[in-house]
């Protein structure tokens, strides 16, 4: 067991107050309902439940 192995952070995941979840870096995103995949780069995921383009944020949280 390599207990002391350093695990490098692969992505920065930021909870935007009253807004979406911003994800940047090395990731694999799977949406199980819509059966879509996405990876790398940058995505914004809806946290408010109101987006018309789930799982992504479409700005509806401001309404």
């Amino acid at each position, binding site marked *: 067991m390599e207990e002391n192995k350093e695990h490098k952070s692969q992505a920065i*995941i930021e909870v935007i107050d009253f807004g979406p979840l911003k994800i940047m870096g090395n990731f694999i995103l799977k949406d199980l309902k819509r059966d879509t995949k996405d990876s790398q780069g940058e995505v914004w995921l809806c946290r408010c439940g109101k987006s018309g383009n789930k799982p992504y944020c479409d700005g509806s949280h401001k309404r």
Partner: protein
Amino acid sequence: MDREDKQFSGGRKYRNDEITVYWKPSACVHASYCYRELIEVFDPGRRPWVDMNGSTTAKIIEVVNLCPTEALAWKWNDDEKNGLVGSDQLNHIKFRRPELMNTNDSVPEEHPVSIKVMVDGPIVLKGNFTLVYNGNKKEVQESIISICRCGASDHQPFCDGQHRKIGFND
């Protein structure tokens, strides 16, 4: 009826003639696979919530293997069979709760962060990443966090299971 609902440290276990299912509530992130796939066995509204007589052993294993955390794990009651279990059996205790099995394998690897958008449920993040929220910066290593997507959690930004109560349907 050979239903057992016994405690072990940190959780409970349930068995039928062939297998034992281990449940560790503190590890649950409410991804909801268990009751969505097999409410006959995993019914959060019932006590005890796991009924090992509700389905076949094969189906129970299949659904326990879907759990994205170590909240659910399983093993054969016949220990000889446990030695033969392969790594496709994701939530066998050998992989999930080695302390219960007494083996020492599974070295964590570096890999992309896995982000799963659950059906009518939260965003489940797994891996090594930096989580920034409420002005905090937290290094998350080899673990799992679930972020509310329905807007109703009382423990924002984390999912606390409210999506089920409000009937979140995206």
